[in-house]
């Protein structure tokens, strides 16, 4: 395997990367974000394995600490252990925040319980947004590690708690059930996520573009969508647009 500089670069496995045990699946090649720039510094050949975090593949073990255990127990009680096990693929506690990774088939059952159950009472859906994890060094775009994530931030004003739900889908089958029926505020959030990431929210009353013009092609916040911009010529040198410029990563 060789990179742009013609140097020999070790493969993931040679660099000590093991998908099963790696905390994040984090893997990065080179010090700069762009390939093909004729990098002769040698840094292009660097291979780094990143520590875990948002994209960590492991699950946090109980007890989670804080109110997270109470929320999880109440959730299990509300939906039943079988549904919980099927719905929640893994739970991650990181930096004092809890994330439930949810299978999309069970999202609505879970969200309904989270809003309505007396012990949960997540009255407010603070935010719905998307993240595209395309070769982030995190879950790459493979079927078992889908690249498009929908992130829900729920707030319980009664108990003053916050949790995060995350649903991952592939770009080829980017369908997630809409939570507008449960949280009407998700209307514009989901439209924005459709607009920016091309994630289809099934059951949304009017899933149209919201920020981009109606006839726009593509979904701008996907990582493979170019930033735009043209090379600028200045003093006989050409400066490439920002996303193709050589830069630190």
């Amino acid at each position, binding site marked *: 395997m060789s990179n742009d500089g013609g140097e020999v670069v070790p493969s993931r496995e040679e660099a000590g990367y093991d998908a099963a045990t790696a905390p*994040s699946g*984090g893997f*990065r090649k080179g010090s700069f974000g762009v390939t093909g720039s004729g990098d002769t510094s040698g840094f292009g050949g660097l291979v780094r394995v*990143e*520590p*875990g*975090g*948002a*994209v*960590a593949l492991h699950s946090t073990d109980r007890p989670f600490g804080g109110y997270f255990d109470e929320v999880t127990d109440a959730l299990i009680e509300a939906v039943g252990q079988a549904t919980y096990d099927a719905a929640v693929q893994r739970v991650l506690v*990181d*930096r*004092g*925040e809890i*994330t439930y990774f949810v299978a999309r088939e069970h999202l609505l059952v879970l969200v309904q319980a989270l809003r309505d159950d007396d012990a949960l009472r997540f*009255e*407010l*859906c*603070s*935010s719905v*947004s*998307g*993240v*595209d*994890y395309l070769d*982030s*060094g*995190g879950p790459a775009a493979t079927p078992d590690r889908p690249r498009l994530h929908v*992130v829900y*931030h729920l*707030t319980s*004003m009664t108990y*003053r708690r*916050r949790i*995060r739900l995350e649903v991952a889908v592939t770009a080829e089958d980017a369908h997630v059930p809409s939570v507008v029926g449960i*949280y*009407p*505020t*998700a*209307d*514009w*959030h989901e439209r924005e996520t459709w607009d*920016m990431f091309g994630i289809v929210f099934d059951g949304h009353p009017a899933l149209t*573009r*919201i*920020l*981009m*013009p109606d006839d726009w092609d593509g979904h*701008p*916040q996907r990582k493979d969508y170019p*930033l735009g911009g043209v090379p600028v010529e200045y003093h006989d040198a050409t400066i490439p647009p*920002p*996303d193709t410029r050589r830069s*630190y*990563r």
Partner: protein
Amino acid sequence: MSTTYNPADPYAGSRETTEGRVYTVTGGDWDLTFADPHGEERLVVNMGPQHPSTHGVLRLILDLEGETVTKARVTIGYLHTGIEKNTEYRNWTQGTTFVTRMDYLAPLYNEAGYCMAVEKLLGVEIPQRAATIRVLVMEINRIASHLVGLATGGMELGALTAMTNGFREREMCLDLLEEITGLRMNHAYIRPGGLAQDLPEGAVESIREFLKIMPKRIADYHRMLTGQPIWQRRLKDVGYLDVTGCLALGVTGPILRAAGLPWDMRKTEPYLGYETYDFEVPTADTADAWGRYLVRMAEIGESLKLIEQALDRLEPGPVMVEDRKIAWPAQLSLGADGMGNSLDHVRHIMGQSMEALIHHFKLVTEGFRVPAGQVYVPIESPRGELGYHVVSDGSTRPWRVHVRDPSFVNLQATAAMSEGGMIADVIAAVASIDPVMGGVDR
């Protein structure tokens, strides 16, 4: 006019002359053109995006029957600038200058929310003085923002003096912020790890002067507006939205508090030491535009209290984290031609310390790395919950910055607030939401 009605072209009849065909644009034939087959008085009015009463480039499409609004649809996106995407191509420190341009009436809140998210990802704690100054500048900013809400809202309702007075006092806030940060708006003053610089000499005195003047001006507002029958009638029972409606639509901030729920994250989920300050969360129980006006006015008073307390507890100390791998090395100072790089700092790195030069160079060109992970940091902006969902993949740039802007969410309530009411009340309802389109469209 001898032109006959031409069914093929109802707008411009034509006749043949020796000079060729002559068209006569007539108009006035609406009865023929728009025969109303259903016997309805339905009229669709497009309002905006360029309209002095829509609080920015907001477009409203109103279905009217007479003067009653039967349907209100909101179209946004006219100010979309792709800030979230842009931050992914700049380093963590540069992100501040982008996010500050979102909600341009509350720039310091954007900066604070973003920086607190980055600091949570980094796991660093900022010095006490930096936290206190953040509270200080944010509360000055809250006053400025509420004053603009009052001023433009007043202007949209025809109260021009509210506009001129509101902008007069807001100017005082901006002067203070200019003195402290160097810029009137889009300050980039709050940075990951602390602040760009310490308070300049004389700033504390200027703020104290402001604290003396402001209570009198608030009393003037109450004299001018609160007791005034026209102002009351334009606002009372207009744009009604109760707590249930607010929560369903995700509405936070003064609108929620005016409906009676004292939800203010400075109290409920305190940050930057807000739990140690003495202040009240004003509420109203009217759930209408009038209540929102009263809540905002009361919040200006509470902000003054907070500013005074912050001034009292200012202790000398650093305003940036000690870690030189994170702390931005460019020290700024006020020169003859305005704010710029500190000459002392330039002398230091160019003439005295090679290590300082290396650090400066590495941080400015490469930036610092932020451990992989994601956080959601909500703060109480003048408009409600301003949430920063920031994802890092461990590199020198954000992987994703999503902003839960309160204006964006609150604006969804436009239809609920204005359908069934009069068209004139739509203006009052939208003004009471106080949306900032820079934040809505990002």
